[in-house]
């Protein structure tokens, strides 16, 4: 591992789940993508679904790249900046592979479902068998494609499993309208109707929520 490399969110450049997320968004809707990186998803949503799609990104270099490509992206932070938006300003608020890296994931979710009628959340699943096996057999923090930074420098301060996420949705009264588990290649896996299996075999979880 290169110590000099700047800390980035896990798999920032891996866009494996973006196609699946785009499939959950209806045409001509208002979308806010939190942690949008260089804006690949909002560009896709504008071009293929005529969405009014915008982005927030914490990394200024990514923001600049997005704006240079003509995309409406502003520098901002999921933890602090969602509170600025009015209620129900968007049809979809998307948080792709960023939930595990925010300071207050529960509050971020609450804000997402305040400013948007739907929330779309994806995260790497800490319940995947390879993660469990590594911890069981080696007794060390797991290192996988999704969890590839040492514990002392990972930005992923709030990892969770698919089952954990279901629990939080129940607890906070969010209705899961769609969900699926996918492997790292982004293909939807065949265990999607069984949370316990998805929690074991899915490398990432993807949820479409709304307030119950």
């Amino acid at each position, binding site marked *: 591992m290169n110590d000099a490399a700047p800390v980035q969110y896990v798999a920032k450049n891996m866009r494996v789940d973006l196609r699946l997320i785009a499939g959950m968004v209806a045409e001509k809707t208002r979308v806010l993508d939190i942690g949008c990186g260089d804006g690949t998803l909002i560009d896709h949503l504008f071009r293929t679904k005529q969405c009014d799609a915008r982005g927030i990104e914490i990394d200024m270099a990514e923001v600049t790249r997005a704006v240079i490509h*003509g*995309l409406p992206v502003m520098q901002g932070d999921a933890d602090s900046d969602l509170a600025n*938006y009015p209620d129900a300003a968007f049809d979809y608020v998307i948080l792709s592979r960023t939930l595990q890296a925010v300071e207050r994931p529960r509050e971020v979710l609450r804000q997402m479902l305040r400013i948007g009628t739907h929330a779309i959340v994806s995260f790497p699943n800490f319940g995947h068998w390879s993660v469990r096996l590594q911890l069981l057999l080696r007794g060390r923090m797991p290192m996988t494609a999704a969890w590839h930074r040492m514990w002392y420098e990972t930005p992923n301060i709030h990892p969770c499993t698919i089952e954990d996420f279901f629990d939080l949705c129940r607890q906070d009264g969010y209705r899961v309208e769609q969900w699926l588990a996918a492997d790292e290649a982004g293909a939807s896996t065949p265990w999607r109707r069984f949370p316990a299996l998805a929690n074991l075999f899915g490398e990432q979880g993807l949820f479409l929520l709304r307030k119950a």
Partner: protein
Amino acid sequence: MDSGQTLGETLHQSVTFEDGLALDCGRHLASLTVAYRSYGTLNADGSNAILICHALTGDQYVAESHPLTGKPGWWEAVVGPAKPIDTNRFFVICANVLGGCMGSTGPRSPHDERPYEPWGTEFPAVTIQDMVRAQKRLVEHFGIAKLFAVIGGSMGGMQVLAWAALYPQMVFAAVPVAAAAYHSAQNIAFHEIGRQAIAADPFFYAGRYWAEGVTPERGLAVARMTAHITYLSEAALTRKFGRRLQTATDLTMLGDRFEVESYLQHQGSSFVHRFDANSYLTITRAMDLFDLAAEHDGNLAAAFGGSKIRFLLVSFSSDWLFPTAQSRAIARALNHVAANVSFVEIPSDKGHDAFLLDEPDFHRTLRGFLTGCAEHAALP
């Protein structure tokens, strides 16, 4: 030398509106002249017009050599054929602000009641919003119903914000650069030093210096020198001048001058040949008065309610005059009304002046934003 003469005789392209202009202060200017320059060609449906708003000491000569100084236009790096604001594609207008001294109605214009002499310090207090109302007259004069974009830095950025607040239906995209929604106490304080320097000049004659055939050059130069420091940064001054001496190699205490001193003096003395002291007083006061939220009970978001404008906010990391926090506050206010807003901070050590200088990231950002907006506006 007679700088009044130097300033006086240049003919500027302008249009005069005989019905004048109602001002925020309650006064009504009997007649309104707006001096301007334009570049490029307005298309048939008038949809490709960009209005550029200049800063405190800028003027309408954006992209051509200045008629008084002979220097290149103040934004030639940004405006021109194939430049980020591409005059092959857009029709670009820039007007001298109300209260200015490059041909628009201002303290050097004939007094409404005593037309045989200029207004001088009797010129009514104008606001940033008044400047925008004057620009609107010019835009309508061109038959333009909706500007594709309004773009400006510093005080120009204040005008952009005022455009967005006053005439949202006339603006498709707005780009306030290195701007703020109000002038801060620190900024007002620096302006006051400049105004006091002008007032203390024995050649000021209570603003009636024209009658004496002189100009308060010393005072105006000191005002410019003070202001110029605020446009730079400590890092930029160090990089440009350090502690280098003008002539000697070692400090001998024999009247040695630091390079930074002679640079500032040059800035001051060249300024007085292209700017009128009373205009400086009028325009700095207009900036000081600017507080967009004040008209909405302190709620800046209310100034932009329901706005369909696409915004691009740009700040520069070393700008301490209009710091990034000010742009971020505007971005948050725009978020409050779910406006379409892009916001970037460009890393630069050049201070506030960075918006005028060679900043490739800024230029690429501006170009990309306008290209994206043109696509959304279905501009050919």
